[in-house]
Protein backbone atom coordinates (compact mmCIF):
# COMPACT_ATOMS: atom_id res chain seq x y z
CA UNK A 1 0.00 0.00 0.00
CA UNK A 2 2.81 2.37 0.95
CA UNK A 3 4.65 1.65 -2.28
CA UNK A 4 1.46 2.33 -4.28
CA UNK A 5 1.09 5.65 -2.47
CA UNK A 6 4.73 6.48 -3.22
CA UNK A 7 4.26 5.68 -6.91
CA UNK A 8 1.07 7.75 -7.02
CA UNK A 9 2.70 10.75 -5.34
CA UNK A 10 5.78 10.46 -7.58
CA UNK A 11 3.63 10.33 -10.72
CA UNK A 12 1.54 13.24 -9.51
CA UNK A 13 4.63 15.34 -8.79
CA UNK A 14 6.12 14.40 -12.16
CA UNK A 15 2.85 15.50 -13.81
CA UNK A 16 2.89 18.83 -11.99
CA UNK A 17 6.53 19.34 -13.00
CA UNK A 18 5.79 18.51 -16.64
CA UNK A 19 2.76 20.82 -16.64
CA UNK A 20 4.88 23.66 -15.23
CA UNK A 21 7.58 23.10 -17.85
CA UNK A 22 4.94 23.03 -20.56
CA UNK A 23 3.55 26.36 -19.32
CA UNK A 24 7.06 27.85 -19.47
CA UNK A 25 7.52 26.46 -22.99
CA UNK A 26 4.19 27.95 -24.06
CA UNK A 27 5.16 31.39 -22.75
CA UNK A 28 8.61 31.10 -24.34
CA UNK A 29 6.93 30.21 -27.63
CA UNK A 30 4.44 33.10 -27.37
CA UNK A 31 7.29 35.58 -27.02
CA UNK A 32 9.83 34.00 -29.37
CA UNK A 33 7.96 32.66 -32.37
CA UNK A 34 5.16 33.77 -34.64
CA UNK A 35 1.73 32.48 -33.71
CA UNK A 36 -0.17 30.86 -36.55
CA UNK A 37 -3.54 32.64 -36.22
CA UNK A 38 -4.98 30.42 -38.92
CA UNK A 39 -4.41 27.38 -36.69
CA UNK A 40 -5.77 29.32 -33.69
CA UNK A 41 -8.94 30.16 -35.64
CA UNK A 42 -9.39 26.54 -36.70
CA UNK A 43 -9.03 25.43 -33.08
CA UNK A 44 -11.44 28.17 -31.94
CA UNK A 45 -13.97 26.80 -34.40
CA UNK A 46 -13.46 23.25 -33.15
CA UNK A 47 -13.38 24.16 -29.45
CA UNK A 48 -15.89 27.02 -29.49
CA UNK A 49 -18.45 26.51 -32.22
CA UNK A 50 -18.59 22.72 -31.86
CA UNK A 51 -18.98 22.91 -28.07
CA UNK A 52 -21.93 25.28 -28.14
CA UNK A 53 -24.72 22.72 -28.06
CA UNK A 54 -23.36 20.87 -25.03
CA UNK A 55 -22.59 24.11 -23.18
CA UNK A 56 -25.99 25.73 -23.84
CA UNK A 57 -27.93 22.60 -22.88
CA UNK A 58 -25.92 22.37 -19.65
CA UNK A 59 -26.44 26.06 -18.90
CA UNK A 60 -30.18 25.99 -19.66
CA UNK A 61 -31.03 22.97 -17.53
CA UNK A 62 -28.76 24.01 -14.67
CA UNK A 63 -30.44 27.44 -14.63
CA UNK A 64 -33.88 25.85 -14.72
CA UNK A 65 -33.26 23.43 -11.88
CA UNK A 66 -31.46 26.04 -9.78
CA UNK A 67 -34.40 28.40 -10.30
CA UNK A 68 -36.98 25.77 -9.36
CA UNK A 69 -35.14 24.66 -6.20
CA UNK A 70 -34.46 28.25 -5.09
CA UNK A 71 -38.07 29.23 -5.71
CA UNK A 72 -39.38 26.23 -3.70
CA UNK A 73 -37.27 27.24 -0.68
CA UNK A 74 -37.76 31.02 -1.02
CA UNK A 75 -41.53 30.53 -1.35
CA UNK A 76 -41.57 29.32 2.28
CA UNK A 77 -40.27 32.70 3.46
CA UNK A 78 -42.14 34.75 0.85
CA UNK A 79 -39.01 35.74 -1.07
CA UNK A 80 -40.00 34.31 -4.46
CA UNK A 81 -39.00 37.45 -6.36
CA UNK A 82 -35.36 37.05 -5.24
CA UNK A 83 -35.12 33.71 -7.09
CA UNK A 84 -33.56 35.04 -10.29
CA UNK A 85 -30.99 37.07 -8.34
CA UNK A 86 -29.69 33.83 -6.77
CA UNK A 87 -29.65 32.14 -10.16
CA UNK A 88 -27.75 34.97 -11.86
CA UNK A 89 -25.11 35.29 -9.11
CA UNK A 90 -24.76 31.51 -8.81
CA UNK A 91 -24.56 30.97 -12.56
CA UNK A 92 -22.32 33.97 -13.25
CA UNK A 93 -19.71 33.42 -10.57
CA UNK A 94 -19.75 29.65 -9.92
CA UNK A 95 -21.91 27.27 -11.90
CA UNK A 96 -21.36 28.87 -15.31
CA UNK A 97 -17.54 28.74 -15.27
CA UNK A 98 -17.33 25.38 -13.48
CA UNK A 99 -19.89 23.53 -15.59
CA UNK A 100 -18.57 25.03 -18.84
CA UNK A 101 -15.06 24.08 -17.72
CA UNK A 102 -16.18 20.52 -17.02
CA UNK A 103 -17.98 20.24 -20.36
CA UNK A 104 -14.97 21.62 -22.24
CA UNK A 105 -12.69 19.27 -20.28
CA UNK A 106 -14.86 16.34 -21.33
CA UNK A 107 -15.28 17.23 -24.97
CA UNK A 108 -12.21 19.26 -25.90
CA UNK A 109 -9.70 17.89 -23.36
CA UNK A 110 -10.43 14.35 -24.50
CA UNK A 111 -10.18 15.29 -28.18
CA UNK A 112 -6.87 17.16 -27.72
CA UNK A 113 -5.31 14.33 -25.68
CA UNK A 114 -6.48 11.67 -28.15
CA UNK A 115 -5.29 13.62 -31.20
CA UNK A 116 -1.86 14.50 -29.80
CA UNK A 117 -1.51 11.03 -28.25
CA UNK A 118 -2.19 9.36 -31.60
CA UNK A 119 0.28 11.72 -33.27
CA UNK A 120 2.88 10.77 -30.69
CA UNK A 121 2.47 6.99 -30.97
CA UNK A 122 2.48 7.12 -34.78
CA UNK A 123 5.70 9.21 -34.68
CA UNK A 124 3.98 12.25 -36.25
CA UNK A 125 5.27 14.43 -33.39
CA UNK A 126 8.82 13.19 -34.07
CA UNK A 127 8.26 13.85 -37.78
CA UNK A 128 7.26 17.43 -36.96
CA UNK A 129 10.47 17.89 -34.98
CA UNK A 130 12.64 16.51 -37.80
CA UNK A 131 10.87 18.90 -40.17
CA UNK A 132 12.20 21.71 -37.97
CA UNK A 133 8.78 22.51 -36.50
CA UNK A 134 8.60 22.80 -32.73
CA UNK A 135 5.56 20.79 -31.48
CA UNK A 136 4.93 23.43 -28.79
CA UNK A 137 4.66 26.19 -31.42
CA UNK A 138 2.77 24.10 -33.91
CA UNK A 139 0.48 21.93 -31.78
CA UNK A 140 0.23 23.31 -28.26
CA UNK A 141 0.16 27.12 -28.63
CA UNK A 142 -2.82 27.27 -31.06
CA UNK A 143 -4.85 24.94 -28.80
CA UNK A 144 -3.85 26.88 -25.68
CA UNK A 145 -4.75 30.27 -27.15
CA UNK A 146 -7.98 28.99 -28.68
CA UNK A 147 -9.17 27.45 -25.39
CA UNK A 148 -8.17 30.59 -23.51
CA UNK A 149 -10.11 32.87 -25.89
CA UNK A 150 -13.13 30.64 -26.32
CA UNK A 151 -13.81 29.68 -22.69
CA UNK A 152 -15.10 33.13 -21.57
CA UNK A 153 -17.37 33.30 -24.62
CA UNK A 154 -18.78 29.82 -24.01
CA UNK A 155 -19.27 30.61 -20.33
CA UNK A 156 -21.03 33.90 -21.11
CA UNK A 157 -23.31 32.05 -23.50
CA UNK A 158 -24.02 29.33 -20.94
CA UNK A 159 -24.77 31.88 -18.20
CA UNK A 160 -27.08 33.95 -20.45
CA UNK A 161 -28.99 30.87 -21.60
CA UNK A 162 -29.18 29.65 -17.99
CA UNK A 163 -30.62 32.95 -16.73
CA UNK A 164 -33.06 33.14 -19.63
CA UNK A 165 -34.24 29.57 -19.02
CA UNK A 166 -34.55 30.31 -15.29
CA UNK A 167 -36.60 33.44 -16.04
CA UNK A 168 -38.98 31.42 -18.22
CA UNK A 169 -39.38 28.79 -15.50
CA UNK A 170 -39.88 31.45 -12.80
CA UNK A 171 -42.45 33.47 -14.75
CA UNK A 172 -44.35 30.93 -16.83
CA UNK A 173 -44.11 27.78 -14.72
CA UNK A 174 -43.94 29.06 -11.15
CA UNK A 175 -45.97 32.22 -11.68
CA UNK A 176 -43.54 34.69 -10.08
CA UNK A 177 -44.05 38.38 -10.94
CA UNK A 178 -41.80 39.10 -13.96
CA UNK A 179 -41.14 42.77 -13.14
CA UNK A 180 -40.01 42.22 -9.55
CA UNK A 181 -37.98 39.09 -10.37
CA UNK A 182 -36.13 40.95 -13.14
CA UNK A 183 -35.63 44.09 -11.03
CA UNK A 184 -34.25 42.08 -8.08
CA UNK A 185 -31.88 40.20 -10.36
CA UNK A 186 -30.42 43.46 -11.70
CA UNK A 187 -30.31 44.95 -8.22
CA UNK A 188 -28.48 42.10 -6.48
CA UNK A 189 -26.17 41.02 -9.29
CA UNK A 190 -22.96 43.06 -9.30
CA UNK A 191 -20.26 43.48 -11.90
CA UNK A 192 -17.78 41.74 -9.57
CA UNK A 193 -19.94 38.58 -9.53
CA UNK A 194 -19.63 38.33 -13.30
CA UNK A 195 -15.98 39.40 -13.27
CA UNK A 196 -15.17 36.59 -10.80
CA UNK A 197 -16.68 34.10 -13.24
CA UNK A 198 -14.91 35.54 -16.28
CA UNK A 199 -11.49 35.47 -14.54
CA UNK A 200 -12.08 31.84 -13.60
CA UNK A 201 -12.90 30.89 -17.19
CA UNK A 202 -9.46 32.02 -18.39
CA UNK A 203 -7.81 29.95 -15.66
CA UNK A 204 -9.95 26.87 -16.34
CA UNK A 205 -9.34 27.18 -20.09
CA UNK A 206 -5.58 27.32 -19.53
CA UNK A 207 -5.75 24.32 -17.18
CA UNK A 208 -7.76 22.15 -19.57
CA UNK A 209 -5.52 22.86 -22.57
CA UNK A 210 -2.23 22.44 -20.66
CA UNK A 211 -3.32 19.17 -19.01
CA UNK A 212 -4.74 17.75 -22.25
CA UNK A 213 -1.66 18.72 -24.30
CA UNK A 214 0.68 17.34 -21.63
CA UNK A 215 -1.20 14.02 -21.47
CA UNK A 216 -1.28 13.76 -25.26
CA UNK A 217 2.38 14.63 -25.85
CA UNK A 218 3.56 12.27 -23.09
CA UNK A 219 1.18 9.45 -23.85
CA UNK A 220 2.53 5.88 -23.45
CA UNK A 221 2.88 3.74 -26.57
CA UNK A 222 -0.01 1.84 -28.13
CA UNK A 223 -3.78 2.10 -28.27
CA UNK A 224 -3.99 1.48 -24.52
CA UNK A 225 -1.66 4.44 -23.96
CA UNK A 226 -3.84 6.77 -26.03
CA UNK A 227 -6.94 5.59 -24.16
CA UNK A 228 -5.26 6.15 -20.81
CA UNK A 229 -3.99 9.59 -21.80
CA UNK A 230 -7.50 10.59 -22.90
CA UNK A 231 -9.12 9.37 -19.68
CA UNK A 232 -6.45 11.00 -17.53
CA UNK A 233 -6.80 14.30 -19.41
CA UNK A 234 -10.53 14.43 -18.65
CA UNK A 235 -10.26 13.22 -15.04
CA UNK A 236 -7.30 15.43 -14.09
CA UNK A 237 -8.78 18.51 -15.80
CA UNK A 238 -12.13 18.02 -14.08
CA UNK A 239 -10.61 17.45 -10.65
CA UNK A 240 -8.24 20.41 -11.07
CA UNK A 241 -11.17 22.67 -12.02
CA UNK A 242 -13.28 21.57 -9.05
CA UNK A 243 -10.47 21.88 -6.49
CA UNK A 244 -9.01 25.13 -7.81
CA UNK A 245 -12.49 26.68 -8.05
CA UNK A 246 -12.75 26.75 -4.26
CA UNK A 247 -9.39 28.50 -3.84
CA UNK A 248 -10.06 30.99 -6.63
CA UNK A 249 -13.49 31.76 -5.16
CA UNK A 250 -11.89 32.60 -1.81
CA UNK A 251 -9.08 34.58 -3.43
CA UNK A 252 -11.31 36.52 -5.80
CA UNK A 253 -13.75 37.27 -2.99
CA UNK A 254 -10.90 39.07 -1.22
CA UNK A 255 -9.74 40.83 -4.38
CA UNK A 256 -13.20 41.69 -5.76
CA UNK A 257 -15.42 41.95 -2.67
Amino acid sequence: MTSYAKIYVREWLAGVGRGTMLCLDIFASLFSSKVSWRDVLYQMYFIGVKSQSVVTITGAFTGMVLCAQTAFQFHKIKMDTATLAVVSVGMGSELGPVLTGLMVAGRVGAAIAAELGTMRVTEQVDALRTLAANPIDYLVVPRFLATLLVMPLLTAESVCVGILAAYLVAVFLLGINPTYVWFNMLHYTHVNDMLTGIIKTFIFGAMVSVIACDKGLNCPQGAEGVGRATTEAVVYSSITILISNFFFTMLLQKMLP
Partner: protein
Amino acid sequence: MIEVRNLKKRFGPSGVLQGVDFSIEKGEAVTIIGQSGGGKSVLLKHLVGLIRPDSGDVIIDGENIARMNERAMVSVRRKFGMLFQGAALFDSMTVEENVGFVLNREKTASPKEIACRVEEVLDLVGLNGIQKKKPAELSGGMRKRVGLARAVIYRPEILLYDEPTTGLDPIASDTIDHLIIRAVDKLKATSIAVTHDMRSARRIGKRILLLHEGRIYANMTPDDLFKSKDPVIYRFVNGISEMKGDAEL
Protein backbone atom coordinates in the same frame (compact mmCIF):
# COMPACT_ATOMS: atom_id res chain seq x y z
CA MET B 1 30.53 15.03 -40.58
CA ILE B 2 28.74 13.02 -37.90
CA GLU B 3 30.60 11.78 -34.86
CA VAL B 4 29.18 9.69 -32.03
CA ARG B 5 31.31 9.28 -28.91
CA ASN B 6 30.65 6.83 -26.08
CA LEU B 7 26.87 7.19 -26.41
CA LYS B 8 24.90 5.59 -23.60
CA LYS B 9 21.14 5.30 -23.11
CA ARG B 10 19.05 3.31 -20.67
CA PHE B 11 15.30 2.73 -20.64
CA GLY B 12 14.45 1.53 -17.14
CA PRO B 13 16.87 -1.16 -16.02
CA SER B 14 18.04 -2.15 -19.50
CA GLY B 15 20.97 -0.37 -21.14
CA VAL B 16 20.02 -0.10 -24.82
CA LEU B 17 23.16 1.75 -25.90
CA GLN B 18 26.24 0.98 -23.82
CA GLY B 19 28.95 3.12 -25.34
CA VAL B 20 28.48 3.55 -29.06
CA ASP B 21 31.35 5.11 -31.06
CA PHE B 22 31.51 5.80 -34.78
CA SER B 23 31.94 8.57 -37.31
CA ILE B 24 30.47 9.16 -40.74
CA GLU B 25 32.05 11.36 -43.37
CA LYS B 26 30.10 13.84 -45.45
CA GLY B 27 28.43 12.17 -48.44
CA GLU B 28 28.91 8.63 -47.11
CA ALA B 29 26.15 6.00 -47.32
CA VAL B 30 26.10 3.91 -44.15
CA THR B 31 23.75 1.17 -43.00
CA ILE B 32 23.28 0.24 -39.36
CA ILE B 33 22.16 -3.32 -38.82
CA GLY B 34 21.36 -5.28 -35.69
CA GLN B 35 18.74 -7.42 -34.00
CA SER B 36 15.17 -6.20 -33.54
CA GLY B 37 14.95 -4.30 -30.27
CA GLY B 38 18.72 -3.88 -30.25
CA GLY B 39 18.62 -0.07 -30.21
CA LYS B 40 19.10 0.78 -33.91
CA SER B 41 16.13 3.16 -34.09
CA VAL B 42 17.10 4.63 -30.71
CA LEU B 43 20.59 5.30 -32.08
CA LEU B 44 19.17 6.90 -35.24
CA LYS B 45 16.86 9.15 -33.18
CA HIS B 46 19.86 10.30 -31.14
CA LEU B 47 21.48 11.58 -34.34
CA VAL B 48 18.64 14.01 -34.97
CA GLY B 49 18.09 14.89 -31.30
CA LEU B 50 14.71 13.17 -30.93
CA ILE B 51 16.13 11.26 -27.94
CA ARG B 52 18.64 12.71 -25.50
CA PRO B 53 21.51 10.45 -24.36
CA ASP B 54 22.25 9.65 -20.72
CA SER B 55 25.90 10.35 -21.53
CA GLY B 56 28.17 10.70 -24.53
CA ASP B 57 28.32 13.10 -27.45
CA VAL B 58 26.63 13.43 -30.82
CA ILE B 59 28.54 15.90 -32.97
CA ILE B 60 26.98 17.17 -36.19
CA ASP B 61 29.34 19.32 -38.28
CA GLY B 62 31.28 20.31 -35.16
CA GLU B 63 28.21 21.07 -33.00
CA ASN B 64 27.50 18.82 -30.02
CA ILE B 65 23.73 18.32 -30.01
CA ALA B 66 23.60 15.97 -27.01
CA ARG B 67 22.82 18.75 -24.58
CA MET B 68 21.43 21.33 -26.97
CA ASN B 69 17.98 22.74 -26.12
CA GLU B 70 14.94 22.07 -28.28
CA ARG B 71 14.78 25.56 -29.82
CA ALA B 72 18.48 25.55 -30.76
CA MET B 73 17.97 22.10 -32.30
CA VAL B 74 15.62 23.50 -34.94
CA SER B 75 18.47 24.92 -37.03
CA VAL B 76 20.49 21.68 -36.73
CA ARG B 77 17.48 19.57 -37.73
CA ARG B 78 17.12 21.65 -40.88
CA LYS B 79 20.12 19.66 -42.16
CA PHE B 80 18.24 16.37 -41.75
CA GLY B 81 15.56 14.57 -43.68
CA MET B 82 14.12 11.47 -42.09
CA LEU B 83 12.00 8.60 -43.34
CA PHE B 84 10.19 6.97 -40.42
CA GLN B 85 9.40 3.27 -40.04
CA GLY B 86 5.65 3.87 -40.44
CA ALA B 87 6.25 6.93 -42.71
CA ALA B 88 4.66 9.18 -39.99
CA LEU B 89 2.63 11.18 -42.50
CA PHE B 90 0.32 13.79 -40.97
CA ASP B 91 -3.03 12.10 -41.34
CA SER B 92 -5.04 15.34 -41.20
CA MET B 93 -3.26 16.63 -44.32
CA THR B 94 -3.28 15.62 -47.99
CA VAL B 95 -0.21 14.17 -49.69
CA GLU B 96 0.51 17.59 -51.20
CA GLU B 97 0.36 19.30 -47.80
CA ASN B 98 2.51 16.59 -46.24
CA VAL B 99 5.22 16.78 -48.88
CA GLY B 100 5.20 20.57 -49.03
CA PHE B 101 5.02 20.98 -45.23
CA VAL B 102 8.44 22.56 -44.71
CA LEU B 103 8.17 24.86 -47.73
CA ASN B 104 4.68 26.00 -46.69
CA ARG B 105 5.87 26.76 -43.17
CA GLU B 106 8.96 28.65 -44.27
CA LYS B 107 6.96 30.68 -46.80
CA THR B 108 10.10 31.25 -48.88
CA ALA B 109 8.36 30.16 -52.08
CA SER B 110 5.03 31.03 -53.69
CA PRO B 111 2.18 28.45 -53.57
CA LYS B 112 2.71 27.82 -57.30
CA GLU B 113 6.43 27.17 -56.82
CA ILE B 114 5.68 24.84 -53.89
CA ALA B 115 3.14 22.92 -55.98
CA CYS B 116 5.76 22.53 -58.76
CA ARG B 117 8.38 21.33 -56.29
CA VAL B 118 5.90 18.84 -54.76
CA GLU B 119 5.10 17.54 -58.22
CA GLU B 120 8.81 17.20 -58.97
CA VAL B 121 9.60 15.10 -55.85
CA LEU B 122 6.46 13.01 -56.20
CA ASP B 123 7.63 12.34 -59.75
CA LEU B 124 10.99 11.26 -58.31
CA VAL B 125 9.26 8.62 -56.15
CA GLY B 126 6.88 7.68 -58.97
CA LEU B 127 3.69 8.96 -57.34
CA ASN B 128 2.80 12.11 -59.26
CA GLY B 129 -0.98 12.57 -59.41
CA ILE B 130 -1.88 11.56 -55.85
CA GLN B 131 -1.47 15.07 -54.42
CA LYS B 132 -5.07 15.36 -53.18
CA LYS B 133 -5.21 11.96 -51.48
CA LYS B 134 -5.08 11.50 -47.71
CA PRO B 135 -2.49 9.15 -46.16
CA ALA B 136 -5.28 6.76 -45.08
CA GLU B 137 -6.04 6.10 -48.77
CA LEU B 138 -2.47 4.94 -49.52
CA SER B 139 -0.84 1.52 -49.25
CA GLY B 140 2.17 0.96 -46.95
CA GLY B 141 4.64 1.20 -49.84
CA MET B 142 3.05 4.36 -51.19
CA ARG B 143 3.13 5.95 -47.74
CA LYS B 144 6.85 5.26 -47.46
CA ARG B 145 7.46 6.79 -50.87
CA VAL B 146 5.49 9.89 -49.88
CA GLY B 147 7.52 9.97 -46.63
CA LEU B 148 10.69 9.85 -48.73
CA ALA B 149 9.40 12.68 -50.96
CA ARG B 150 8.68 14.76 -47.83
CA ALA B 151 12.19 14.06 -46.51
CA VAL B 152 14.01 15.11 -49.70
CA ILE B 153 11.93 18.09 -50.86
CA TYR B 154 14.07 20.67 -49.03
CA ARG B 155 17.33 19.01 -50.15
CA PRO B 156 18.75 18.07 -46.71
CA GLU B 157 22.44 17.37 -46.22
CA ILE B 158 21.81 14.21 -44.19
CA LEU B 159 19.14 11.59 -44.88
CA LEU B 160 18.06 9.13 -42.20
CA TYR B 161 15.98 6.04 -42.92
CA ASP B 162 14.39 4.03 -40.12
CA GLU B 163 13.62 0.51 -41.36
CA PRO B 164 12.74 1.74 -44.87
CA THR B 165 11.67 -1.65 -46.20
CA THR B 166 10.09 -3.27 -43.13
CA GLY B 167 6.59 -4.58 -43.76
CA LEU B 168 6.84 -4.24 -47.52
CA ASP B 169 6.71 -6.98 -50.15
CA PRO B 170 10.00 -7.73 -52.01
CA ILE B 171 9.04 -5.64 -55.04
CA ALA B 172 8.03 -2.62 -52.97
CA SER B 173 11.25 -3.05 -50.95
CA ASP B 174 13.27 -3.08 -54.14
CA THR B 175 11.52 0.12 -55.29
CA ILE B 176 12.29 1.85 -51.98
CA ASP B 177 15.95 0.75 -52.16
CA HIS B 178 16.30 2.18 -55.65
CA LEU B 179 14.60 5.41 -54.64
CA ILE B 180 16.97 5.79 -51.69
CA ILE B 181 20.00 5.23 -53.93
CA ARG B 182 18.59 7.69 -56.48
CA ALA B 183 17.81 10.33 -53.84
CA VAL B 184 21.27 10.06 -52.29
CA ASP B 185 22.99 10.27 -55.70
CA LYS B 186 20.90 13.24 -56.79
CA LEU B 187 21.26 15.22 -53.56
CA LYS B 188 24.85 14.14 -52.78
CA ALA B 189 23.62 13.72 -49.20
CA THR B 190 25.04 11.70 -46.33
CA SER B 191 22.79 8.68 -45.90
CA ILE B 192 22.25 6.59 -42.77
CA ALA B 193 19.80 3.73 -42.91
CA VAL B 194 18.78 1.41 -40.10
CA THR B 195 17.53 -1.99 -41.17
CA HIS B 196 17.58 -5.70 -40.48
CA ASP B 197 16.87 -6.48 -44.11
CA MET B 198 20.29 -7.77 -45.23
CA ARG B 199 19.56 -7.47 -48.96
CA SER B 200 18.57 -3.84 -48.52
CA ALA B 201 21.54 -3.16 -46.20
CA ARG B 202 24.00 -4.46 -48.78
CA ARG B 203 22.41 -2.48 -51.57
CA ILE B 204 22.03 0.96 -49.99
CA GLY B 205 25.12 1.11 -47.77
CA LYS B 206 28.75 1.53 -48.79
CA ARG B 207 29.69 0.76 -45.19
CA ILE B 208 27.83 -1.33 -42.62
CA LEU B 209 27.83 -0.95 -38.84
CA LEU B 210 26.62 -3.90 -36.78
CA LEU B 211 25.07 -2.88 -33.47
CA HIS B 212 25.36 -5.77 -31.02
CA GLU B 213 24.68 -5.71 -27.28
CA GLY B 214 24.59 -1.92 -27.20
CA ARG B 215 27.93 -1.39 -28.98
CA ILE B 216 29.21 -1.18 -32.55
CA TYR B 217 30.49 -4.71 -33.01
CA ALA B 218 31.55 -4.44 -36.65
CA ASN B 219 32.32 -1.53 -38.96
CA MET B 220 33.21 -2.69 -42.48
CA THR B 221 32.26 -2.74 -46.15
CA PRO B 222 29.28 -4.92 -47.19
CA ASP B 223 31.61 -7.36 -49.01
CA ASP B 224 33.83 -7.83 -45.95
CA LEU B 225 30.79 -8.26 -43.70
CA PHE B 226 29.23 -10.91 -45.88
CA LYS B 227 32.54 -12.80 -46.09
CA SER B 228 33.25 -12.57 -42.35
CA LYS B 229 33.58 -15.78 -40.35
CA ASP B 230 33.13 -14.04 -36.99
CA PRO B 231 30.36 -16.06 -35.27
CA VAL B 232 28.21 -13.04 -34.29
CA ILE B 233 28.45 -11.48 -37.76
CA TYR B 234 28.02 -14.80 -39.53
CA ARG B 235 24.92 -15.73 -37.54
CA PHE B 236 23.32 -12.32 -38.13
CA VAL B 237 24.11 -12.11 -41.84
CA ASN B 238 22.89 -15.64 -42.50
CA GLY B 239 19.93 -15.47 -40.11
CA ILE B 240 20.99 -18.32 -37.82
CA SER B 241 19.31 -18.27 -34.42
CA GLU B 242 20.97 -19.46 -31.20
CA MET B 243 17.87 -21.42 -30.25
CA LYS B 244 18.45 -25.16 -30.03
CA GLY B 245 16.45 -27.32 -32.45
CA ASP B 246 15.03 -29.48 -29.66
CA ALA B 247 13.65 -26.55 -27.67
CA GLU B 248 10.18 -27.39 -26.38
CA LEU B 249 7.20 -25.11 -27.02
